[in-house]
């Protein structure tokens, strides 16, 4: 295995250990009891939290900011695509040329999406108000990752550089705002638990209280 592969492996191990640590801290934190009697279907609400509640039809923030929402989805999709290519290169998996060829314009679009979001954060005063250097850096880091993956698909000699870059990204994830990747699913679970227990999400009560139009 090459040096950069070892570095990537070590970085992955460190990042995964940090993610596991964060998750365990959440799971095994002293629990604040919630003995209130439930009036809803909690499992249904948690499922809804990850599905329907995320849809622009239900989420006003997505509906009112469709371009930004779409750019965000593309940016995140690009991260997963670039990560998939890192795995391909790491394991030396043979992938049909068509997929590689198709990935190039896709990564170009996702990188551009990330750049537009960065530009938005730089130019909009309301976003600058609470943005931190970490916000700009994290954005640049993931856009750079996708751009480098794209370049690597064009020129495979960049594979070592991509491995090193991916290592740096992995090491940074637990440190800055990118750790939302770890906390995002947990937040959705907690939100589902909250609204589910109270019967706000996942409830079938509307049928029970239906009134026929006069």
């Amino acid at each position: 295995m090459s040096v950069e592969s070892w570095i990537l492996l070590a970085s992955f191990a460190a990042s995964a250990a940090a993610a596991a640590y964060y998750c365990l801290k959440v799971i095994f934190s002293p629990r604040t009891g919630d003995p209130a009697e439930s009036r809803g279907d909690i499992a249904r609400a948690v499922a809804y939290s990850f599905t329907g509640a995320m849809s622009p039809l239900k989420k006003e923030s997505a509906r009112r900011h469709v371009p930004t929402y779409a750019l965000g989805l593309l940016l995140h999709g690009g991260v997963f695509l670039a990560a998939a290519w890192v795995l391909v290169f790491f394991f030396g998996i043979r992938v049909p040329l068509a997929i590689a060829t198709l990935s190039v314009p896709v990564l170009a679009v996702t990188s551009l999406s990330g750049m537009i979001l960065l530009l938005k954060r730089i130019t909009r005063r309301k976003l600058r108000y609470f943005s931190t250097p970490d916000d700009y850096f994290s954005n640049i880091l993931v856009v750079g990752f996708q751009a480098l993956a794209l370049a690597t698909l064009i020129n495979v000699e960049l594979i070592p550089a991509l491995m090193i870059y991916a290592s740096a990204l992995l090491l940074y994830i637990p440190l800055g705002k990118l750790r939302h990747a770890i906390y995002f699913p947990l937040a959705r679970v907690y939100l589902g638990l909250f609204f589910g227990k109270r019967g706000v999400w996942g409830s079938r009560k509307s049928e029970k209280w239906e009134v026929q139009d006069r």
Partner: protein
Amino acid sequence: MGSSRPLTDEQKKALAVLAERMDGKLRTHLNACVRCGLCDESCHYYLRYRDARYIPTNKVEQIARVYRRHYTVLGRLIPKWVGARDLDQETIDEMIDVVFGGCTMCGRCAIHCSVGVDIPFLVATARSMLAELGLVPKGLQSTVDAAIRTGNNMAIPREELVDTLQWLDEDLKMETSDETASIPLDAVGKRVLYTLNPREPKFFPLSISAMAKIYHAAGESWTLSTHCYDVTNYAYFSGDRRAAAELTERLCNEVKKLGAKTLVLAECGHGSRAIRWEGPGWIEKAYPFEVLTVIELVAGYIRDGRIALDPTKNTKRITLHDPCNLARGGGVIEEQRYVLKKTCVDFVEMTPNRADNFCCGGGGGQLSMGEYRDRRVEAGEIKAEQIRKTGAKIVATPCHNCIDQLMELNLVYNLGVEVKTVCEIVAEALVPR
């Protein structure tokens, strides 16, 4: 780089609150925000002022940046890089202004957050830190103090309450032409113990009459306590968990003392949420009795045929304001619609409604914080416009806090509506069997 001034004892106390509350949920929500700002227009304060201070992201930041300073590696080493802040005077002053003066904890932002951060939960925790520092705005603190000291947040003497209720009892007998109709006080062994918002005996006794008529029509076995009856719990808004637990425990003990089977929560959004959903957590045990909001109870009466209604008695167009803590924070959403559709001929929804509804602006303890009165009324413009667009003549809402705010909005924005509780409208539609 990461050095900071030594913490004062007071600051240590506030940080101890954060440490004490650091469960999995708090840790998750403190780390999940990506500061995308897409939540901006979910907040009625931001919609009104277009000021970045009121973007819910910034409300998260009030506590998250302090968390990062003390709980994260980069926050300790290079705080400016991650926007971490010490709990210094500047941070505290901004925190007070944003979490007390710029948020009603209505929770609309949590529903619409890209990630799913429970923003009002973080605001509540920030308020608890400030409460530990003795920095709760005076009006809100005195409301909590009055409840702890006198048993009700308006410090109504028991004699005054009893006088009012006895007068209402006589009135009820006359109105129903039934000598058996009554408002039973401190009766032991009844099925229902009904609570009151102290605003009712003080300013809106007719809402007690309305509910007494409904109980009478339904043939309910019920009572009121003259010792412990306050449905509100402003300590939920001030962040004082000890006081919140104390008020909950008192009510719990009163139900047990009177041997009631069901505690029925009067029309009060935050009180319903505080008692039903937060209370068991504060006192760390489940209630040994059933807890229902009065809206659920009345909806049940109608569905089960225990009361008869004539909707043609309410011909004016009625719209509904969903109290945030009852609907979004308590799941009572369809019941009040069911009740209103059965009691009037022209019901119209506001847009948006249900769990998406905008706060009236009076929640979060705002009505008791005179410091932010102008901001509260101005931010209420969003609600006022919602009401105006419905063309309704009556705004119904099952919350006395919301009633106060809506009445003020009615005057300030010249809406020309009447503002009523849901049960008042039900009482008007009652028909004798």
